[in-house]
């Protein structure tokens, strides 16, 4: 099973290069290959849960070669990326008929998945940068996929800010290499333990906060996200908002700060501050939006704030809450974007003012939107409720009563904002007669149902106890174990 670790990168890359070679003649090949690869990846990542190990690429021992590292945190993120990726790929089969040159789409999609998987499994700092750029470049191209005014403009903004973020991260990596003489995360952690957090290391830390903050769209750095995410095709928005900002933003931050640099109280305070800012400002900006996808995108900023808040508490309970919310958010936010996509697919609109009564026209989408909205709003039987509850508990137990109050308040505003979506989009009669151009395709329904069921099913993970939901306790162990040993 240990040989499955490199496969997480190899398979999507092979698929991405294979598709353009054969798909000139056969139009069904991109669909088939893309979905087959995603199914295999989802199965493998399911099998990797609960396993641990270090894979030495090329058989070279640790300081010489590149390590691939599998632990609890890696496993859940792989599951999130590939599970959501599978749903998005299923959804794309029909949805991407709206666009041309499907093989380019699947090729870029698989590049993005390969990049994210690579970021998650690698144990080498520069390798992480390379994979991050693979995922990022693919996502710039995917945002511009429609080639219309808005898409191009959003993609340009996203690409320039992403490029600046990557540059900052690369400077950080250079500084770390200059001080520690190594790029292997475990070795860097080891060296930093002996030399302490000297000013150059602190400079690198600042650069990492800014760079990965940009990639994760935390609030002072969030300007690109509300443009980029809604402009992409719906399955890509689901991937971007659902997993990309987590895989190349939040995950890397958590990994570096907890396992490489070691969490100091200042660092945790910065994470909490960024978290609360994103949480509050994101939701306030979201309330006034009428474009459905744009509204969801602003909520992504706010929900990422929850994750950062949980992680920034630094206690095992806070970590559990943050990671659990990360998983939950990737499920319900992808579901929301796919719902918006299916509404756009059948009516060609996504502005709430022009919509209405969709629950009668598309009953399935209405149901899944209800599930996802209740989830993100934190209504009891759904998964979002539990993770928010854990985060709020963790705040109270760590003595941050004010933060807990903010978290509750933001949750209420989120619920209000989604009630608006449900009312104007799905239940109230439309202002003018809506013309339904296409009915929903079966594979799209499958993808929506899969995600909606997991929204409910993931709340079952807390039956073992609110303190440690089954899926994430290994990940919490991995993070709270402190810095990597050699």
């Amino acid at each position, binding site marked *: 099973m240990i040989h499955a670790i490199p496969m997480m990168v*190899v398979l999507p890359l*092979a698929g991405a290069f*294979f598709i*353009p*070679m054969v798909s*000139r003649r056969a139009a069904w090949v991109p669909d088939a290959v893309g979905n087959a690869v995603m199914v295999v990846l989802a199965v493998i990542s399911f099998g990797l849960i609960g396993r641990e190990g270090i894979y030495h*690429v*090329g058989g070279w021992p640790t300081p010489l070669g590149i390590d691939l590292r599998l632990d609890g945190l890696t496993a859940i993120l792989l599951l999130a990326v590939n599970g959501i990726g599978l749903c998005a790929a299923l959804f794309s089969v029909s949805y991407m008929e709206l666009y041309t040159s499907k093989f380019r789409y699947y090729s870029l999609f698989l590049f993005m998945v390969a990049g994210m998987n690579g970021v998650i499994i690698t144990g080498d700092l520069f390798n992480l940068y390379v994979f991050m750029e693979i995922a990022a470049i693919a996502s710039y191209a995917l945002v511009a996929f429609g080639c219309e005014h808005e898409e191009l403009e959003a993609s340009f903004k996203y690409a320039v800010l992403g490029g600046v973020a990557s540059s900052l991260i690369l400077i950080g990596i250079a500084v770390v290499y200059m001080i520690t003489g190594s790029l292997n995360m475990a070795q860097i952690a080891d060296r930093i333990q002996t030399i302490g957090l000297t000013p150059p290391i602190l400079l690198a830390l600042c650069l990492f906060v800014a760079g990965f903050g940009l990639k994760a769209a935390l609030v002072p750095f969030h300007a690109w996200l509300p443009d980029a995410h809604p402009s992409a095709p719906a399955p890509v928005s689901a991937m971007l908002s659902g997993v990309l900002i987590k895989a190349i933003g939040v995950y890397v931050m958590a990994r570096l700060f907890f396992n490489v640099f070691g969490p100091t109280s200042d660092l945790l305070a910065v994470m909490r501050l960024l978290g609360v800012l994103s949480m509050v400002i994101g939701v306030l900006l979201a309330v006034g939006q009428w474009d459905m996808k744009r509204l969801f995108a602003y909520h992504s900023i706010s929900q990422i704030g929850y994750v950062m808040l949980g992680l920034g508490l630094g206690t095992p309970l806070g970590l559990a809450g943050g990671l659990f919310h990360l998983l939950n958010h990737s499920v319900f936010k992808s579901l929301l974007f796919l719902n918006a996509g299916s509404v756009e697919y059948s009516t060609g609109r996504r502005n709430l003012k022009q919509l209405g009564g969709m629950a009668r026209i598309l009953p399935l989408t209405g149901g899944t939107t209800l599930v996802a909205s209740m989830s993100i709003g934190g209504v009891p039987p759904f998964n979002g409720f539990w993770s928010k509850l854990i985060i709020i508990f963790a705040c109270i137990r760590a003595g941050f009563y004010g933060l807990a109050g903010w978290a509750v308040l933001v949750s209420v505003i989120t619920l209000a904002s989604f009630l608006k979506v449900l009312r104007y989009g799905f239940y109230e009669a439309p202002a003018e007669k809506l013309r339904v151009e296409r009915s929903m395709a079966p594979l799209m329904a499958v993808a929506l149902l899969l995600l909606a069921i997991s929204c409910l099913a993931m709340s079952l993970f807390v039956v073992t106890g609110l303190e440690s939901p089954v899926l994430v306790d290994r990940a919490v162990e991995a993070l709270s174990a402190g810095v990597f040993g050699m």
Partner: protein
Amino acid sequence: MAAEGGMSLVVKTVTRWLKGLIFLFGMYIMIYGHLTPGGGFAGGVICASAFILITLAYGAPEAYRHLPRGAAEKLDSFGALTFLIIALLGLWFAGVFFRNFIGTSPESHFRLTSAGVIVPCNLAIGLKVLSSLFLVFVMLSALHIIVSGEGRRRIERRRHTP
């Protein structure tokens, strides 16, 4: 040959003399990447520069006569796939992904055959770099910009207002 498009006779003739030698030198850099400075990327860039020179001197159609666009697109994917397959062969033969599965002996050091899979890997990278750089150059240089709609109106307006 001389009259139809492209640059002047001098550039065309010199291009014809040099294109093969540039390509050859690129291949040399690629194949001896493990012994001298260079490697797959540098060699691929030099090889691509041969095609770019042809594009500049004669125009894109003549470049397509040397390396058709469809073939370049196929080669692009083929190079990357070859690289992956070499890496997977390491898993197959030696049990570790990316393992150098072609054994080398100490007396073969500093020879062409001393590096096992590195030479085929360099060739695969070179192929990939060659074709993708060529494609990037040709696509961006041969792109016909058709400004329409809102942009057209904006340009007109700028032209009329001093």
